[in-house]
């Protein structure tokens, strides 16, 4: 039983820390309506920068801030390729992602950096008598709440509204005098900053950075978003949507933990993730289709009976 509780606690913890990455993906995928594949690279960049700073005796908070800035830079490059070079979004993201693989190796100097006796954000937990999982869960939750508050504020501002509108109707946004190249650039920069922040938090929690740690991150981000949408419904105000993503991220991790406990091999995880995303994207369509057919049958029956 203890094993189960531990596994579930670990899953919730992972879900919270990874949810910041999912919030970043949400900015490009849903708000800007761009499929930005930089994610897999910028997530590892966050981890790489954080690990290098920590092994050189740096402060964990500084490490997180610098990692976030590095992610912003990566996102800016993607935005630059997208807006100034007019490279299609998917290709611009892939170019950044591939380029970042080499850059991440350069940053780390090797493909894996273990963090053995370095400081971490979660150290205070020991003195407070908490387990690492619990300490990182509390820290992760605090940071996530802070990020949600910042995003809620930012996307309510003049600039934030213009970014949301850009993904909705670009022509209208230009007609009201907003430079859509700029809004896209801000969006990709902000998005990848959050993704790298999440990578840095994960690195401190798992105690190592790996150049391959970002592989599949985009799909995990999408999984969190669509699971959140299935659970909360695709409506509600902006704040509810952000909370739905965090919930989606936690549910995703719980599903993974359950199937691993049930004996699935970790090698099959990526396939499982792909299936989860596919199913979550399909469910809303099937449900609305069924609802429509049921309504048709009911109303038609009424009409026929009255005739």
């Amino acid at each position: 039983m203890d094993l189960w509780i531990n596994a579930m606690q670990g899953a919730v913890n992972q879900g919270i820390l990874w949810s910041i990455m999912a919030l970043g993906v949400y900015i490009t995928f849903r708000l800007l309506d761009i499929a930005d594949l930089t994610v897999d690279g910028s997530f590892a960049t966050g981890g790489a920068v954080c690990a290098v700073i920590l092994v050189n005796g740096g402060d964990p908070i500084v490490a997180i801030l610098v990692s976030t800035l590095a992610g912003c830079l990566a996102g800016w490059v993607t935005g630059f390729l997208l807006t100034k070079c007019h490279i299609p979004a998917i290709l611009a993201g892939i170019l950044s992602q591939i380029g970042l693989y080499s850059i991440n190796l350069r940053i780390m100097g090797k493909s894996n950096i273990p963090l053995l006796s370095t400081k971490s954000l979660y150290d205070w937990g020991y003195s407070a008598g908490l387990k690492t999982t619990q300490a990182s869960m509390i820290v992760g939750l605090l940071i996530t709440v802070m990020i949600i508050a910042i995003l809620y504020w930012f996307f309510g501002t003049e600039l934030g509204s213009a970014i949301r509108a850009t993904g909705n109707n670009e022509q209208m946004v230009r007609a009201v005098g907003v430079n859509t190249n700029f809004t896209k650039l801000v969006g990709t920069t902000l998005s990848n900053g959050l993704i790298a922040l999440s990578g840095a938090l994960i690195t401190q929690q798992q105690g190592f950075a790996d150049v391959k740690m970002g592989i599949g991150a985009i799909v995990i981000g999408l999984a969190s978003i669509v699971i959140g949408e299935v659970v909360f419904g695709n409506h509600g105000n902006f704040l509810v949507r952000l909370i739905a993503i965090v919930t989606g991220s936690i549910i995703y991790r719980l599903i993974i933990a359950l199937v691993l406990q049930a004996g699935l091999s970790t090698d099959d995880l990526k396939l499982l993730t792909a299936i989860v995303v596919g199913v979550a994207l399909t469910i809303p369509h099937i449900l609305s289709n069924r609802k429509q057919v049921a309504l048709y049958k009911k109303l038609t029956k009424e009409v026929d009976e009255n005739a």
Partner: protein
Amino acid sequence: MLKIKNVSKTFNIGTINEKKALKNINLELNDGDFVTIIGGNGAGKSTLMNMIAGVYPIDCGHILIDSKEVSLDSEYKRASMIGRVFQDPMLGTASAMSIQENLAMASRRGKSRTLRWGITKKERKEFKELLKPLGLGLENRLTSKVGLLSGGQRQALTLLMATVKKPKVLLLDEHTAALDPATSAKVLMLTNEIVTKQHLTTMMVTHDMQEAIDVGNRLIMMYDGQIIYDVRGEEKKQLTVPDLLKKFEEASGSEFVNDRMLLG
């Protein structure tokens, strides 16, 4: 207010699809002029509007708004001086955002977007007052998503958005063409009201010749990338649809006006 000097535009230069869309256009609009533009498909009406708005660059010539050269300015920069309503009701508004958010964005046309809150309490009140005269009940649906509105409602809203911050030039590109006759008449009436009240310099493309005669103080007919007829004031008021058809025959040299001109 608006001056167009020797403006030409050719699409697909050097290919088999080469199309001279505008041929040396010269046009000057005075402050408060309300010009209606008619002409068959491919005459260059929409191209002219798009050139003024900066959607595509012009090949040569000058476009001046309020004596300021804008020929090389990008679309979003010119937008600080230009209000636009498009033919497609879907194009002028952001469907996933609320009525008040759309109006708030439009009322900041030409201003840089800061980190101030996107909509203020004072604006909410102003928007309510602004929407009331439409008689569409939108003043009670400020937080409704624009995607829930009908085409006519969206077009009326777009018109308000284009004029909520007074533009130096208002461009209406067949903005009533996609609406049913009753809604179309309503939007046209609203257009007339706003333009007159704010004394706006306006260009309106239409396919309805009677409408082109009834509205505005000046009428332009385009054919094959050129302005072939330009009439204003009393002379315009005396015009009839048969007059226009005759003018078209004379200027274009066609034996009889073709059905494209009539039907749009």
